[in-house]
């Protein structure tokens, strides 16, 4: 039994969770939606500032709600999302996690954000085991992955431009629906006519002819919605836009594109289980259409509960538990990266401190070296002693 505390700050949610194997002991999420609403999207620097303010209270709440009998002594590892995401935002969580690991003498593990979304499915169905197909759909990512084991992934398909959640946000902005776009479009789509407008499903042509069976493109779909809005404005000036019909038709095109490619991949590659992760997994249209398409083919579909669809730290802790049990640890000089393919997840572990360690995107300067610029006083000895397990620190 492994207990991990994890921090997730890759975008606009400040999250801390404690997970025991695949059981969530506590999961705190402080959303920044209100903070970014005035800007119509996420401002990276604003996100980083929000994380600094929200993170430590979230750590305290996660510990309080988990109510671990042994306190810190019951926690085996500290983890943080370290890639991909907004680098400034990631660094906040990584810095706090390393500090916790250092002061309590625990191993530190960096976790790939998308792998976290894969692991959200394990929180839903603790009996789930690889291999399975994973459809990851969020504001920053749209991918079809072959899940073969912990840290062992194969890229099957992806978006060539906008992530699906990004397309929802952009179309919501075109329709004047505010931010974030996914929930409001999903709600309106339920009342509109999905056949009112014929929007393209975003085929990706191959150089030698034909179309890619699993890749998709959403920027053309977004442009088609914009042209339709402009045409309606010209043809029927002064009339209100049929917002619900536009939302329903747009969502139908998105869902059609995702379901078609997911089912094709499962059948072509012999997967019997499909797990769906990411914020767009909360979309009711996608849930019902994928389940309806999979059921007659005998394919099992696993959707995480809504709380684990959007960014959260429970999924990161769950992934950290698996890597910890596989004997993996991250070096304390692991950096944060805006991009990292999920197929490179294992590069986060095992490397001892080395100037050529792969995760150094945010380390553009020369290494300063171990010697101080202006030493004075006694010379430090490497290895501060952590708080002993169960030790109660002094009160001020």
């Amino acid at each position, binding site marked *: 039994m492994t207990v991990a505390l994890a921090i997730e700050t890759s975008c606009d949610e400040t999250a801390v969770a404690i997970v025991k194997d695949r059981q969530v002991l506590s999961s705190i999420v402080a959303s920044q939606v209100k903070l970014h609403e005035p*800007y119509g999207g996420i*401002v*990276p*620097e*604003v996100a*980083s*500032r929000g994380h*600094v*303010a929200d*993170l*430590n*209270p979230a*750590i*305290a709440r996660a510990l309080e709600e988990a109510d671990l009998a042994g306190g810190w002594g019951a926690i085996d590892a500290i983890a943080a999302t370290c890639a991909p995401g907004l680098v*400034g935002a990631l*660094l*906040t969580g990584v*810095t*706090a996690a*390393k*500090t*916790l690991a*250092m*002061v*309590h003498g625990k191993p530190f593990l960096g976790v790939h954000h998308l792998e976290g979304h894969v692991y959200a499915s394990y929180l839903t169905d603790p009996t789930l085991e690889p291999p399975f197909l994973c459809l990851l759909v969020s504001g920053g990512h749209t991918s079809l992955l072959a899940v073969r084991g912990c840290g062992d992934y194969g890229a099957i398909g992806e978006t060539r431009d906008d992530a699906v959640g990004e397309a929802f946000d952009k179309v919501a902005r075109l329709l004047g629906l505010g931010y974030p776009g996914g929930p409001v479009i999903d709600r309106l789509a339920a009342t509109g006519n999905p056949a009112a407008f014929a929007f393209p499903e975003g085929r990706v042509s191959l150089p030698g002819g034909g179309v890619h069976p699993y890749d998709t493109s959403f920027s053309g779909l977004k442009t088609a919605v914009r042209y339709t809005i402009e045409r309606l404005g010209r043809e029927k000036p002064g009339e209100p836009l049929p917002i619900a019909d536009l939302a329903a038709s747009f969502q139908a095109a998105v869902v059609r594109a995702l379901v078609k490619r997911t089912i094709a991949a499962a059948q072509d590659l012999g997967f019997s289980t499909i797990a769906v992760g990411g914020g767009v997994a909360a979309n009711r249209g996608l849930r019902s259409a994928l389940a309806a398409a999979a059921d007659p083919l005998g394919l099992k579909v696993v959707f995480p509960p809504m709380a684990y669809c959007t960014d959260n730290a429970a999924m990161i802790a769950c992934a950290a538990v698996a890597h910890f049990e596989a004997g993996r640890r991250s070096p*304390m*000089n*692991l*950096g*944060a990266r805006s991009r990292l393919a999920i197929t490179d997840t294992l590069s986060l572990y095992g490397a001892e*401190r080395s100037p050529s360690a792969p995760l*150094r995107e*945010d*380390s*553009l*300067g*020369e*290494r*300063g*070296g*171990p010697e*101080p*610029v*202006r*030493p*004075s*006083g*006694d010379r*430090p*000895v*490497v*290895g*501060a*002693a*952590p*708080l002993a397990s169960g*030790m109660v*620190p*002094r009160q*001020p």
Partner: protein
Amino acid sequence: MQPAPVVGLAIHTTGPQLGLAARWPDGTTTDQVWDLGHQLSTDFHDYLQGFMGDRPWTILDYLAVATGPGGFTGTRIGVVAARTLAQQLRVPLFGVSSLAAAAWTYRDRAIDNGLALQMPARRGEYHVAFYQVSATQTPLPILNDCVMALEDWKLWLEARDRPHGLVEVGDQLGKDARSVLELAEQVWGQGDRRSWEATLPYYGQHPVDSPQSRPPAIEPP
């Protein structure tokens, strides 16, 4: 019998340098500075752990951290680490302005106890502050840290119409870690035991608001 020295650790990361300073249980003070640049984001904990040596974290009576102004990312790294350490160790955390720390470092440059400090900010503006300083007392802000156009700052100083020293604060701030420690020690000595929750970075500027959309930071005296 002498009372046991108060043990504190100060962290300064608002510039490309990492500065650490500590007062140890034997009463000695150590400070060290490293030119880490962008390596700060990856190597901070290695250097901090090395600085502490084999001493247990529980020896610390308090933490202190420079809260800015300065580089946004570097400031956050120091503040997040200090907040987390103070939270876990349940000791007070003192946030100290980078400009106040510089005022303490350069207190001998004050004229008639007046010291003006200016540091380049983004968009052609300046972080500025004016402190009343002496050799023995904590700098007293006459003008709190704020952001101004250089012309406005010059006007403010002219309107004050009294002699003062002026310090151009660059980005080599690691050496001010000792000042952060000493100022925190003074606050501790006054009986202040503030919680980590009160300490957040001071940025001075917003990533979206433009100077034109903001009212003037301060009226000249």
